């Protein structure tokens, strides 16, 4: 069975995110506006005010409360949605951990923006990286259509009985949040049909008025260890589940994204560029150009950051001669970028090849075609045995 052709509209990333949430029919929404996410919260309020969405909107005084509200509503059995960015994400840090520990299937959009310390109202993935170990599944998307599709897929993932985990959908602030591009809006009946399998699953536990039940009660000693062990196992299961859901989505809606990672011209490639988010689109253009020059380069777009797609990456990178990783954030206290650091842990399985770390695109500085072209050239040189620089902060050298 196939979905009907959806309506094609030109919409910004934020409006697409709000529409995606609307189509998934969340029963409770609590989102505090923050640049560059504000349109998501505003549009969802407008949908409810216009009678286009039957949701309870809880107006909160900050993000910490927003996450507490959606976590509690989720534990009470509701489907929930929230959205945030940067300062908002770190303001809800304790409740992020709580939501994950409660195994509440919250779906949240995080519009990537630089974090406090240096006040930067600009794009960057540092906010997402700062919450890496919160126990959430973290997915990064590349364009507005993928925002739409991944939010829908995220409900299938979060609420799956075998998973029961909160999911954070990340997209680049400014680059995507305010970018208007053509997007196909699926029909409501098709989104309903895609989410229908969740209704056939066993019900998850929920708070029942008058009954002394509770979640996250003091897990002393082995209770704590057991809860953590189950949480850790569930995150391991997320990897295959992301692939399965992506495949099912592709079969039904005709669009798929490769699941945990998307591989572009990797099969016969000698060298690989690993990138994520909107920069992956630019990287694809560079790969095509380099291929015309006879350089056998390929792109791996990292979609799933948590859990880290260990097996899929080993499969994609095994036998390659060198890899360049572009990070849009900094790993404080460890010299490579965060994604590069993680990739280096796979070295025993992919072989002792040069892995070059690049820091680029901080604070709204563009990850340009010349930047990625330079990455490809340097990775190619490293692959042929030339010496290379471990870490390169591209803007520090190019400006």
């Amino acid at each position, binding site marked *: 069975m196939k979905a009907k052709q959806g309506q094609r509209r030109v919409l910004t990333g934020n409006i697409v995110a709000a529409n995606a949430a609307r189509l998934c029919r969340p029963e409770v929404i609590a989102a505090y506006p923050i640049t560059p996410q504000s349109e998501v919260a505003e549009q969802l309020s407008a949908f409810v005010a216009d009678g286009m969405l039957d949701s309870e909107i809880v107006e909160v005084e900050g993000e910490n409360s927003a996450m507490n509200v959606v976590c509690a509503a989720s534990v009470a059995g509701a489907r929930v949605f929230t959205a945030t960015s940067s300062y908002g994400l770190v303001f809800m840090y304790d409740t992020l951990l709580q939501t994950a520990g*409660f195994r509440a299937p919250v779906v949240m959009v995080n519009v990537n923006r630089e974090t406090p310390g240096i006040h930067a109202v600009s794009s960057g993935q540092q906010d997402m990286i700062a919450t890496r170990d919160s126990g959430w599944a973290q997915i990064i998307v590349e364009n507005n259509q993928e925002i739409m599709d991944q939010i829908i897929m995220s409900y299938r993932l979060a609420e799956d009985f075998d998973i*029961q985990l909160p999911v954070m959908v990340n997209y680049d602030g400014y680059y995507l949040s305010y970018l208007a591009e053509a997007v196909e809006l699926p029909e409501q009946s098709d989104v309903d049909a895609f989410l229908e399998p969740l209704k056939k699953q066993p019900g998850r536990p929920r708070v029942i008025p008058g009954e002394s039940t509770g*979640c996250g*009660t*003091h*897990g*002393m000693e082995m*209770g704590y260890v057991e*809860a953590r062990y189950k949480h850790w196992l569930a995150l391991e299961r997320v990897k295959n589940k992301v692939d399965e859901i992506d495949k099912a989505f592709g079969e039904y809606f005709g669009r798929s994204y490769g699941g945990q990672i998307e591989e572009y011209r990797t099969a016969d490639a000698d060298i690989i560029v690993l990138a994520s988010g909107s920069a992956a689109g630019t990287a694809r253009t560079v790969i095509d150009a380099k291929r015309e020059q006879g350089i056998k380069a390929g792109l791996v777009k990292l979609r799933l950051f948590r859990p880290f797609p260990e097996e899929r990456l080993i499969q994609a990178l095994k036998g390659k001669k060198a890899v360049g990783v572009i990070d849009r954030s900094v790993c404080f206290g460890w010299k490579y970028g965060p994604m590069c650091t993680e990739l280096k842990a796979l070295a025993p399985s992919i072989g002792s090849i040069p892995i070059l770390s690049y820091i680029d695109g901080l604070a709204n500085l563009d990850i340009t075609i010349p930047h990625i072209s330079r990455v490809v050239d340097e990775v190619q040189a490293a692959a042929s045995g030339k010496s290379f620089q471990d870490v390169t902060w591209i803007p520090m050298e190019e400006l």
Partner: protein
Amino acid sequence: MVVKHKAIFKTESPWSNGKGVLLKLDTGSWRTERPVLDVSKCNYCGLCALYCPPQCMFDRGDHFEANLAFCKGCGICAKECPRGAYKMVPEGEFANEG
């Protein structure tokens, strides 16, 4: 990996309930003194139960009494009681009660 641990939680998430598994902190063991009520001074106003931080006061119909399984002995009930009906007594006084 062989997991030998017998599951405490019946659910995927760490849920417990009053009828089955109720995981709790044994906070009563932290106590060094306990509130002892002089019932003749008590007028059942309920302030002690209202202020009790772990909310472990039993309602006995005409007075309140701390649930010693949870009472940490913080003494707030004794401090707040307008009639001075509670006396904080060192646990050593009860050492022979077993």
